[in-house]
């Protein structure tokens, strides 16, 4: 089930797209500094795993020596998994080995996923999924020696949930109001005048900073798009002649953006209610064209949200978009305790959700045009606290899609030698070796942004020698 042929087709489309975007540039005149390739259709789907996913319990060492080392550092946690029992998911014999296409880069080291991630393991093996090891927020390449002597320039408020979520999404602590998902879409909208801005950035759960741009804001989709009952349900006021007229006026009232309010907050409320009414109607109209998928999604939160994403992609032609950025979020990864009983369920839902999403995209022929990637507050301490783990820094993430050069491990998954230079001075917190901005740039490059646009969106990218990790075939320009 390798996707080589599909990827080949995709690259062909990319070339054609480049030509057409040149045409757009010419027609827009020389003053247009932006040149994002917006041909064809592409979507990025961010799955934010809130709480901080424990990388060391997601990508495990598989060669005996590395496995033993981790089991020793985490003897209490492995004890809660009964790791020596034959049936334990953390027994080495039950781990699912990753057969890397780039195994040569790692010498004798081998890696595995736990059984709960089995659907992702299958996707990895078939080339639809890659792992990016030890990625996290960085201002510049950072070593422990630099941290010890105080010369390191570090992201602010490491180990704090809200601030590191914000930093992953926006490169600043809580309060920054532009995320890189939104910034990418700002560039797309600037380059594609016909792109519908409203449906460019779509969230399925919380209102976080990732999708906030200068011109782009998130649109929320859920399982039901309900229209306002007050005027769309004729049972409320009744069926008299005057009631239809009243309903029209009620709609106009709710869709009114401006009431000459002097309060700036009231102005914002009027604006958001009005946009909600208009956008909901527009989306509901597009949704009338929706047909169900054969693929059945699970009932958990990630699966339901990814189903909402898939359904939105399926009606994209009615939404008038050539690029879309999606934001899915799910919680529970802050496994300070009871990790052995909690992480497996979270992993299982994540893996099933991504796998179903892949099936749905295959169904409509869009799998080559979408990438799904994970993000999380931080990795966790390699040294456990008995039955859980605490806040760390670098962690491991997944990137999936037909265009992904899968079956490969990018970046590093350091040994569990917690006294080594790979870790901070306490509790085995990994110092990232790949920055979030490299991770983002790699996908942005595939998405169609050019170097200047990437540097505008990713403020520290120039501090890193390798702005593209090669996950999606490397630089195309």
């Amino acid at each position, binding site marked *: 089930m390798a996707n080589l042929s599909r990827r080949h087709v995709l690259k062909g489309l990319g070339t054609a797209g480049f030509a057409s975007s040149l045409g757009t540039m010419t027609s827009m005149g020389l003053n247009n500094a932006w040149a994002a390739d917006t041909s064809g259709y592409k979507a990025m789907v961010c799955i934010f795993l809130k*709480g901080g996913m424990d990388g060391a319990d997601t990508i495990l060492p598989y060669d005996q020596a590395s496995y033993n080392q981790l089991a020793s550092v985490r003897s*209490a946690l492995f004890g809660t998994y009964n790791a020596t029992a034959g049936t334990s998911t953390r027994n080495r014999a039950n781990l699912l080995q990753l057969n890397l296409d780039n195994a040569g880069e790692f010498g004798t080291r081998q890696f595995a996923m736990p059984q709960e991630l089995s659907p992702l393991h299958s996707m990895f093996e078939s080339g639809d999924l890659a792992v990016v090891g030890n990625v996290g927020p960085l201002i510049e390449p950072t070593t422990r020696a630099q941290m010890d002597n105080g010369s390191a320039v570090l992201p602010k*408020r490491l*180990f*704090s949930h809200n601030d590191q979520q914000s930093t992953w999404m926006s490169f600043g602590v*809580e*309060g920054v*109001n532009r995320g890189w998902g939104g910034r990418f879409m700002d560039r797309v909208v600037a380059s594609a005048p016909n792109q519908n801005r409203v449906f460019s950035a779509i*969230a399925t759960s919380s*209102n976080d900073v990732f999708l*906030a*741009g200068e011109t782009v*804001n*998130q*649109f*929320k989709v*859920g*399982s039901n798009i*309900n*229209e306002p*009952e*007050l005027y769309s349900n004729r049972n*409320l*006021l*009744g069926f*008299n*002649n*005057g*009631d239809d007229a*009243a309903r029209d*006026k*009620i709609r106009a*009232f*709710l869709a*009114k953006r401006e*009431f*000459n309010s*002097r*309060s*700036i*907050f*009231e*102005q*914002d*409320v009027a*604006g*958001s209610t009005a946009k*909600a009414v208009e956008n*909901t109607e527009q989306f509901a109209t597009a949704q009338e064209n929706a047909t169900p998928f054969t693929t059945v999604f699970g009932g958990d939160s990630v699966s339901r949200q990814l189903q909402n994403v898939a359904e939105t992609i399926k009606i994209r032609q009615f939404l008038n978009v050539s690029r879309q950025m999606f934001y899915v979020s799910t*919680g*529970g990864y*802050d496994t*300070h305790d*009871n990790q052995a009983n909690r992480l497996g369920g979270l992993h299982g839902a994540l893996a099933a959700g991504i796998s179903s999403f892949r099936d749905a995209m295959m169904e409509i022929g869009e799998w080559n045009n979408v990438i799904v990637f994970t993000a999380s507050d931080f990795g966790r*301490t390699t040294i*456990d606290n*008995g039955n859980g783990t*605490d806040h760390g820094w670098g962690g491991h993430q997944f990137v999936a899609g037909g265009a992904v050069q899968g079956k490969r491990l990018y970046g590093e998954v350091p040994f569990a030698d917690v006294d080594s230079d790979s870790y901070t001075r*306490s*509790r085995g917190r990994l110092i990232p070796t790949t920055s979030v901005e490299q991770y983002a740039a790699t996908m942005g490059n595939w998405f169609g942004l050019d170097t200047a646009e990437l540097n505008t969106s990713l403020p520290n990218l120039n501090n890193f020698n390798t702005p593209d990790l090669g996950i999606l075939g490397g630089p195309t320009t």
Partner: protein
Amino acid sequence: MRAISKYGVAATLAACLVVSGCGAGGGGEGDAGSVVPGAVGAAVDPTSKIDTETDAVQFLTWSTFGGSKSEIAAITGQDAADWLASEFAKPATLTLPTLAAQPRDSNANIESNRVDELYWDHIITADDQVRQRMAFALSQIVVYSDAADNDQLMRGYYQDILIRNALGNYRELLDEVTYSPAMAEWLTYMRNRKGDPNTGRMPDENYAREILQLFSIGLVDLNLDGTPRLDAQGQQIETYSNDDIIGLARVFTGLAHAGGNFNRRPDDGDIQQLEMYPEQHSELEKVFLGTTIPAGTGGEESIRIALDTIFEHPNVAPFVSRQLIQRFTQSNPTPAYIENVATAFESGRFTAQNGRVFGEGTRGDLQATLAAVLLEPTLFDDPAANGTITTGKVREPVLRFTHWARAFGVSNVNAGNERDLDDTRSSESGLGQQPFSSPSVFNFYRPGFIAPGTNSGNASLTVPEFQISNEGSAVGYLNFMTDFAFDRTSKRDRDDRTYQPNYTDELSLVDDPQALVDHLDTLLTAGRMSAEEKTDIVDILGTIELRTSTPENTADDQEDVVQTAVTLVLNSPSYTVVW
């Protein structure tokens, strides 16, 4: 109090709220003394005197779950300080007794969702409204959520810790919270063991980090007025390092359920304070925030020293004060306002403009602190006659719902019969908010949230509530409120007319849409509706057809008019915001 002078014209002649008491003339001649006409654009009364019904609604909107008509009548003519003192004197209404008395199934469990349902009934009907509102505000600072563990009695016990201490002292509150089973489960220090050098195991750092970041001092050093302190290089100064967390984490070891067995929870373990098990408590030296607890210090003593150390940090007053102001009155308080409240927290005293003194003089006194929040002199100044108003706040969806329920005196308050109140978290079909059920310890929204793509955001104004109240939730909120306002919610027993609003006063105004809208403007927005909002709603109400074929049809359509009027006001910008 103050004249609302949005258009250079003081809003004064609001219709008398209890229409039956107004005489045949309706709004034209209010009860003597209920309305004090003010000069155009001028201060009516610079003190906290509640002169009019409009003043009363404004003050009750800040300080309670929404003013009922009887409360509005009762406080009009009083000084807000005097009324607040009488509220502070009321006995606490607790939640656990009612919860514990619920019927049990064969496993002795209470029917699911009861704790959520009862909390709605509780905050709508409890007489000690200010205390309950303060407890709800505190629930958004020392956040416990049942998102991870829905043990209902454990949550009820925690709710009561907040209710009992809401008008007490913040130091005592931190103590009870620390020893509560709910917080210990939520922030994972239940049965947290000391480190083990053999396995490398270290204490759980969760509570150590969050009690500092969220419950007490925050991330950067603050001045008394809430502005960040800066070092010689002009940089903000972080309050703690990761080493402080490692040191403090040793303090919160050894706690587990009472009953003598570290690993066993007795039947009533969730409604008792935790017990310290010395053999599981770290004997190591504990260093944090400049304090050293010597090696070998016992667990309870270590916690006492740690909480004292945290509580004595100069950040606590401005950190807690700013967030309380945000919960009650303003999203972006001035430094002077924060300093006034923080000073009351520090000194344990606050003197109102009428000379009434609040607080016992002990640092952390929450009566003094809350009085300073609600009686801040600048709140009673007239808003500027011209220009954009950037003070005030967006009201939480929970408060917008309870205000409706209280303003229209809903009868048969039994949320157990209301399916819509089982779980109000959905932004598509609910309020996007449910008390004690935030998604994480970071509450429903962050104190520093700035909404992208908005006028307020472009002006760098903080609006926490916009994190849950926005384009993505507006239609869900509208539909939720429509169902209640129209008395058409889904009920378990359809014949049991729970949460039924009383629109008698409003129906008496139905022939005069302008009078009806003026009345709702006073009752629900404290006279803050813009002329344009009112004109539009009056026009809509006049358009709804009143059938005359039978008296029943006419009455039915008149009810539609009132319900539509109420729903539109509940969804108007001026109801959503208070300033």
